[in-house]
């Protein structure tokens, strides 16, 4: 018998919703609201509910829902396929690519970074990071495609020149536990999978870095463990963030770019304060870089990514770019990828948007590399 997903409501006192949660009707309840339930049921069960006095609104057939979900995920990497693809890239280009395990997650998954460059120990290095936030799937794909592009074009200019004089490090998935959870349990999960003292789950990895950590207590940088932007019990409390910290400390990158979604923005420090960076040369450099990247992105598909200080989006203490700039003086940008708004998909970006999103970000990422590796040594 066909199975369907239904929203069940009731205005009848003889049919209270709470009864459905305890009654032995064999219902698969997916969601409990104050005034409704969403459940999976077969057609006979749905008919029985109506006979009992409940209003039953069919949302979708279950098969249709599952195929839509599969479509939703197709084209995006999983933790496993990302590892496979990174290994393949390293194996196909052994002379210039090395896969490094830079740490382990809370649930003991490896965190991978691909080093791309002809020489080891170069003093010019740039880093690209992705997926601090689990639900931002596109932020895995853009840095991954960047790594693939660099390796596929390593014999032609300008990539060859960059890889001769410097190194590009790409870590596409900083938060593998969270990503896996979005794939298997909750597509809109944001944090890592740390079990907090109060029993809640997750620390926001992009609030856990050590520059001005914990100096705000607002919606977007919270000290409440259950909140989506929980900063953690102390700076660098999370193994995923420590892995990035140690990588940055070892490699001393001349520039760091971290991908997020969504809103189509190019953010430069500070996040923790609305005051501008005091060093006017640094401010000018990052503002100009963001402006140039904005133009490059716009030139591909006409899409607008707005350059602005991070705090202009909202206040964030303990984020990646504040730390890499504040601690290391490295030009540091956060790129918020497609789409522009929740009405355009928000975190659930259709997979057919991966390629155009990469295409428009490619020249901007290459410009960032050129700026860091091609400029004067820092």
């Amino acid at each position, binding site marked *: 018998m066909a199975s369907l997903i239904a929203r069940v409501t009731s205005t009848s006192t003889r049919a209270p919703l709470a009864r459905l949660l305890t009654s032995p009707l064999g219902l698969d309840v997916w969601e409990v609201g104050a005034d409704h339930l969403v459940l999976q049921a077969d057609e006979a069960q749905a008919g029985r509910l109506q006979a009992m006095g409940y209003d039953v609104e069919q949302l979708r057939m279950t098969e249709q829902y599952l195929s839509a979900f599969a479509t939703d995920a197709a084209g995006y990497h999983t933790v496993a396929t990302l590892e496979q693809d990174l290994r393949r890239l390293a194996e196909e280009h052994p002379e210039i690519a090395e896969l490094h395990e830079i740490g382990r997650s809370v649930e003991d998954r490896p965190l991978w970074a691909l080093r791309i460059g002809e020489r080891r120990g170069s003093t010019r290095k740039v880093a690209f990071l992705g997926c601090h936030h689990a639900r931002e799937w596109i932020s895995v794909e853009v840095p991954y495609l960047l790594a693939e592009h660099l390796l596929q074009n390593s014999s032609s200019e300008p990539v060859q020149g960059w890889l001769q004089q410097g190194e590009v490090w790409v870590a596409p998935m900083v938060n593998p536990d969270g990503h896996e959870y979005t794939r298997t349990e909750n597509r809109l999960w944001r944090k890592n999978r740390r079990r907090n003292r109060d029993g809640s789950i997750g620390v926001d990895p992009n609030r856990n870095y050590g520059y001005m950590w914990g100096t705000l207590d607002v*919606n977007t940088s919270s000290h409440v463990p259950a909140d989506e932007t929980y900063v953690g019990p102390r700076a660098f409390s999370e193994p995923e963030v420590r892995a990035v910290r140690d990588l940055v400390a070892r490699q001393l990158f001349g520039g760091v770019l971290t991908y997020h979604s969504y809103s189509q923005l190019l953010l430069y420090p500070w996040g923790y304060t609305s005051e501008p960076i005091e060093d006017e040369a640094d401010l000018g450099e990052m503002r100009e870089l963001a402006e140039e990247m904005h133009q490059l992105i716009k030139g591909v598909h006409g899409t607008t990514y707005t350059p602005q200080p991070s705090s202009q*989006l909202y206040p964030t203490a303990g984020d990646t770019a504040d730390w890499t700039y504040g601690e290391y003086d490295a030009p540091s940008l956060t790129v918020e990828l497609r789409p522009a708004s929740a009405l355009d998909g928000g975190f659930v970006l259709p997979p057919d948007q991966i390629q155009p999103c990469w295409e428009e970000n490619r020249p901007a990422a290459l410009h960032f590399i050129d700026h860091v590796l091609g400029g004067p040594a820092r």
Partner: protein
Amino acid sequence: MPGSEQTWVARITPAAGHSVATLLGLSLGLDVWERQADALVVAAPESRLVELERRRLASVERWGTPTDYRARRRDRSADAPDDS
């Protein structure tokens, strides 16, 4: 308890005399998805949204549960042509 109550995806617009920055400065545990010029798109438990309304800080337009939101996204992406 936020963990056991309904979460909404909502657009919250500051009430007269308040600003988007005012809303961002609160410690209400809003999961801010998007900042617009005159509003925020957030995911938040019902009690937090009620608190915003009760304190007359913002008007709240509940777009749906995260599940509703995702289902609508899937429907829309299945229908929409690629505009890139």
